[in-house]
């Protein structure tokens, strides 16, 4: 971090890092949400991606391969979640919970099997996630240069994913049909299409982005911590609602959550607050955001 920066800039800079897993999970969850399914499995999908990406990276010696395999594992679990929900016609809330429970049980069992520990697993041999290299003159732009540059590559991939998602959702036949599935699945049937296929696509996309979100968590740390997803999937779910179910809205909501967490991280150094309360802050903040949002919505709907 540059020494001369005012206090606000490192705060925003770290918020951009912190928001990325929320944003990724939120964008993936948006696809399922638009297809008319509430995806509470995001949490478990992030955890799965986190575990397998770092373990596979350590096994293959390549960050990229590890990330890819982690994403594939997360998508495989997403497929299981989708298959049981859609083809065995199970309740989507309950299968979502099942996915979260399965992920937290399965990662511990595998960690115990492979590393003989249920605690933190360090991977000292793993290289750091590379940062994006930008020309020096860009880096020197005041404020913007400090805030936008110097993040790891996943952050920029995430921005590309957000842009791509906006295009796919609003500008392609697939996006139109996906949204149609959520609004009225019968319409899709009358077009001769299978709404379940779009729902499954939404779920698999959420597996992909959550896998990447998980990869970022473990690879930044160079270690796997049990339950490292620590509520991010749930907070992402709230970000989808606060963002009014649009990619850009989710971007803003995730940034607000990222900033809140970044502020509380800095506060931790400045004020003596018990660590448990600091850890509880994201949840409390999310609940408050949810309440404010629903009051706002309530007021609007009762006025009209």
């Amino acid at each position, binding site marked *: 971090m540059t020494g001369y920066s005012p206090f606000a800039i490192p705060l925003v800079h770290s918020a951009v890092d912190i928001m990325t897993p929320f944003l990724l999970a939120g964008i993936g969850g948006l696809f399922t949400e638009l297809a008319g399914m509430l995806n509470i499995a995001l949490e478990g999908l992030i955890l799965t991606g986190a575990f397998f990406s770092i373990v596979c990276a350590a096994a293959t010696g390549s960050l990229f391969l590890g990330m890819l395999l982690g994403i594939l594992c997360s998508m495989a679990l997403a497929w299981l979640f989708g298959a049981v929900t859609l083809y*065995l*016609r199970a309740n989507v809330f*309950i299968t979502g919970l099942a996915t979260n429970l399965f992920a937290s049980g399965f990662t511990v069992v595998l960690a115990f099997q492979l590393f003989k520990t249920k605690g933190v697993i360090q991977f000292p041999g793993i290289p750091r996630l590379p940062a994006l290299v930008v020309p020096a003159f860009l880096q020197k732009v005041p404020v913007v240069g400090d805030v936008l540059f110097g993040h790891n590559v996943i952050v920029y991939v995430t921005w590309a994913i957000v842009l791509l998602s906006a295009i796919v959702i609003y500008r392609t036949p697939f996006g139109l049909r996906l949204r149609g599935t959520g609004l009225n699945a019968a319409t899709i049937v009358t077009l001769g299409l299978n709404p379940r296929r779009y729902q499954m696509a939404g779920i698999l996309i959420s597996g992909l982005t959550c896998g990447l979100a998980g990869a970022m968590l473990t690879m930044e740390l160079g270690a796997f911590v049990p339950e490292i997803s620590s509520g991010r999937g749930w907070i992402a779910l709230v970000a989808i609602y606060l963002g009014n179910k649009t990619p850009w809205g989710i971007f803003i909501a995730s940034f607000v959550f990222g900033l809140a967490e970044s502020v509380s991280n800095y506060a931790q150094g400045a004020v003596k607050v018990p660590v448990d309360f600091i850890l*509880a802050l994201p*949840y409390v903040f999310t609940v408050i955001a949810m309440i404010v949002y629903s009051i706002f919505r309530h007021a609007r709907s009762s006025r009209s």
Partner: protein
Amino acid sequence: MKERRNLGELFTGFTGLALTLLLSFGLVIVLIFLLSGTPVRTLYFFFVGAFTNSYYLGNMLNVAVPLVFTGLGISVAFKAAVFNLGGEGQIYAGGCAATAVCLALPAANGFLGGLSALAGAAVLSGAIAGLSGFLRMKWNTDEMISSFLLSAAVVLAVNYFITGPLGDPKNNLLSTLAIGPQYGLSGIFPPSKLNISAFFALAAALLMFFFIYKSHAGYEMRMCGLNREFSRYGGINVSKYFVLPMIISGALHGLGGGLMVLGTYRATIEGFSFGMGWNGIAVALIAKNNPLGVIPAAFLFAYLDAGAKAAMINSDVTFEIAAIAQSFIFYLVTARALYAFTRIRSRA
């Protein structure tokens, strides 16, 4: 015609549940063969271990007690079509509240003090869950997500109390100070930890059965669960039935946690109730939200838990294989295709 279909549904209901359990246990067997160096020994302890001595057997029954309470708590909310996903935090908070009351009254009479400890547990957890119900009633805030988020924050707050104000500095375990000996519930199956809270669980199940099926409020609550708009036109105060079931649900979780402290742990130990809240949801689903069905369903989950513990102690697998088996029961328990597979086949 109609009767035949009802009979058929009952039948497929049972075969579906049997199939769910069969598949889940089948998965455990496969997992044990994959993970264990001595699969036969592990399988023996997983499936039979809980019955090999009275210590394991009693402890298994003792694990079923809080599951009955969480299962009842979830059932009552489901009956009103509200979701309480905050069970984990509510049961943990209940345990902590009971501990705090007992520690605040070190010299009180065991019966009265214990009663106020349980009351404290029920009130605190009822209020936590009731808050989500209130938000739903007032501003239509999704109670499922808010109850989960609040619960996650509550778990951390309880952790603070365990290590902070109520902490036992002499104990290496992350635990509060132990409660006074007069508060311990008497054991009924020594040497195991099974205690008289088992009777409380049975009483609670009966009470909830009468409340849900035989009381005025229970009837209105069930009607709201079936169709809230229709109930509104029928003159039922529907907004009340967002809050009341959540309060009852939270209070039952709190009682479960409080009884675990008074009966088994005699202190709040970090993570002592983890998993009980989630498993309560599965217990309620297996019981089809019937309070009397919750009891056998809780036994089933306690059996899985005891089997995994016995396998861990006596063999080379870790306890979390129970979580995998439980998650599979979760996956399949609402799978309508599985439950009605005979009907689908005849239609195809």
